């Protein structure tokens, strides 16, 4: 059953009233507040246990409560990832943990293991249960299976294309969430244990060492084969074998996803910076809002595409959205490119009378630098930094120290949580 998303508001203009949820990542409370402030409808976070990013800061139960309280003010939802494939010993403490999450006021959990699904239904029945992409859900009958199991929402495998999503929506009446932006596994999620084999770190319990992104060398094997034996399928000057995918970027396909009635559009990246989260969320917020307000006259503003590139440290591609991706959607040799912009400061305060901003420094800048400010309350603008003072009122020749609080005059009004970036 396809979700009805359109209705005629006026005789001559179509608007879309049921917008998809824009779902953002947050590795800690600061990132969560930024994500919500910049326009996310919902945020997914990790707790201290049972999630897949053991290196992220992650949230204590108390921080979850604070997150819920903050999100409530904006009408935003919080989901907690509990998407490990549990081993026997991981069952302990799960009941208590799920009850605590429920009591914190979180809307739902994202789960891969049926053990956690059933435990949640038993001990924390008011939590919504969303099936994680770790289940690599890739056909509509499997979607039906999980609906019959009582799940509220499914997150699709990253290998599912637009036409497949449409067929799923046509056949099953369940909320569907899909990734629109960010880094991705190159394997079917949940079906990779490279990390277990190479570094004894369990990828399906949050220990992934991303060894898929290392360089390898392709040989034709014979009993005598080794690195020197001359069975190489590459010449000395060739790039090594690599499995590094370009990051996902579906900004141009948002209209198709909205029309298909996809319920939640997910941005990856709990480990990413607040600058990344703010930039990506604000662009997708604009695209979704602009399309839904006037779908018939919608066009992509090239500025949005440029904006997304300002926080990207890897090239992007649409992955499986239309087709199985070829070599153009992978990276060989250079797996990283430098971010073209530095996140240089976060606005703490602005004095409308004096036109002075109080800013927390995040990266080096100095008088004479060209910078730009952006945020949900303002149109992005560029300006040249004039005199800078430190928090004791001393004039300084540069803002050198991370988290240093400085003041200077801005060309236009700015607001708390606006960000300043500088082109490199």
């Amino acid at each position: 059953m396809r979700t009805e998303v359109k209705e005629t508001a006026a005789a001559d203009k179509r608007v879309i009233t049921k917008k998809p949820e824009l779902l953002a990542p947050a590795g800690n409370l600061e990132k969560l507040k930024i994500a919500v402030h910049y326009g996310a409808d919902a945020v997914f976070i990790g707790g201290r246990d049972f999630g897949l990013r053991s290196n992220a800061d992650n949230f204590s139960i108390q921080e979850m409560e604070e997150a819920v309280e903050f999100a409530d003010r904006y009408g935003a939802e919080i989901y907690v990832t509990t998407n490990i494939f549990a081993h026997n010993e991981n069952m302990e403490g799960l009941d208590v943990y799920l009850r605590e999450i429920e009591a914190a006021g979180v809307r739902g959990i994202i789960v891969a293991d049926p053990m956690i699904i059933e435990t949640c239904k038993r001990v924390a029945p008011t939590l919504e249960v969303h099936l994680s992409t770790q289940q690599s859900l890739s056909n509509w009958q499997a979607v039906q299976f999980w609906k019959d199991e009582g799940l509220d929402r499914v997150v699709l495998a990253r290998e599912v294309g637009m036409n497949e999503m449409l067929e799923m929506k046509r056949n099953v009446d369940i909320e569907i969430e899909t990734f629109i932006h960010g880094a991705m596994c190159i394997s079917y999620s949940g079906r990779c244990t490279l990390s277990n084999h190479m570094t004894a770190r369990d990828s399906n319990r949050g220990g992934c060492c991303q060894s898929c992104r290392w360089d390898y060398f392709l040989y034709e094997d014979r009993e005598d084969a080794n690195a020197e034996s001359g069975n190489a399928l590459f010449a000395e000057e060739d790039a090594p074998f690599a499995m590094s995918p370009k990051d996902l970027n579906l900004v141009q396909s948002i209209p198709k996803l909205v029309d298909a009635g996809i319920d939640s559009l997910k941005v990856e990246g709990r480990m990413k910076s607040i600058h990344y989260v703010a930039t990506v969320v604000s662009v997708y917020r604009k695209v979704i809002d602009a399309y839904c307000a006037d779908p018939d006259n919608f066009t992509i503003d090239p500025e949005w595409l440029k904006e997304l590139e300002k926080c990207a440290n890897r090239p992007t591609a649409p992955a499986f959205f239309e087709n199985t991706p070829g070599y153009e959607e992978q990276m060989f040799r250079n797996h990283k490119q430098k971010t073209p912009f530095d996140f240089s400061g976060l606005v703490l305060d602005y004095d409308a009378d004096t036109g002075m901003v109080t800013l927390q420094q995040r990266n080096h800048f100095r008088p004479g630098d060209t910078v730009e400010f952006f945020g949900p309350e303002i149109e992005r603008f560029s300006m040249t930094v004039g005199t800078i003072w430190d928090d004791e009122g001393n004039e300084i020749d540069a803002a050198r120290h991370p988290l240093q609080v400085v003041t200077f005059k801005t060309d236009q009004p700015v607001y708390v949580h606006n960000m300043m970036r500088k082109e490199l």
Partner: protein
Amino acid sequence: MIKPELLVTPTSVENVEEVIDAGADAVMIGEERYGLRLAGEFDRTAVHEAVKLAHERGVKVYVAMNALFHNDTLPELPDYLAFLDKIGADAVVFGDPAVLMNAKQYAPKVELHWNTETTATNWYTANYWGRKGSARAVLARELNMDSVIEIKENAEVAIEVQVHGMTCMFQSKRTLVGNYMEFQGKDLGVEGRSKDRTLVLHDPERDVKYPIWEDWNGTHIMSPKDMCIIDELDELIDAEIDSFKIDGVLKDGAYIRDMTGLYRQAIDQYAAKPEEYIEEKEAWRDRALALQPDNRELDTGFFFKETVY
């Protein structure tokens, strides 16, 4: 003493006969379109022949349908399942819930074995799939001996573990070998990228080689060594693990036949004269080692390893 089933994945109908002669109690076969990383390709005719042959000898035949299915293949499932039901296959090996749902309708006489490989990691979830209709759980290869035994102690379904062979580390839907060759400007028709090509990825950091190939299901990368616990079977037999699997993927029929014979003897020896088996542990490992190709070392997989996260 209850002897575990010895389950083998053979390369061809002839090899089915050979492994039965060598002492297999069951075989797992199938075709690439529905099953993952099989030792041989068995079309419907071959599956039917294998079933007839095996049943005459009192041996069971399990058919692999453990691929991750996309919408486009779903319409084929009822017909294939009905065929398996009709010829009397003993079990369907599945990972995708779509197979489970279709099997109930189109292959009601055939048992179901849950095998998602990497995600079968705790006893609760093994029992969960049991409640959904599965008679057996095939455990993840990344578990250690203690975890395997704890799962068995709490399981309401039969438990299968791999005791020998290569294990899968990675599956991608992307055509990674072809993509690399294309990136290098090589002619794919000439180069080839299937299982027959025996391609490996060399990992310079660890100086090991991972077999890699591409097929209908995407790109597969396999463990650099063959796991072998022919000398550590006693604890698993004592725990009454139901089925021991020898995976023959990327091996020839003769190797699979000979390794089957070796495990047959080892299991039988432990059942009949456990103290002799314990005494001979080192000899069992040497016998297995003697069958190994020079470029494939043996290890014990994750049976005695700890992983962190």
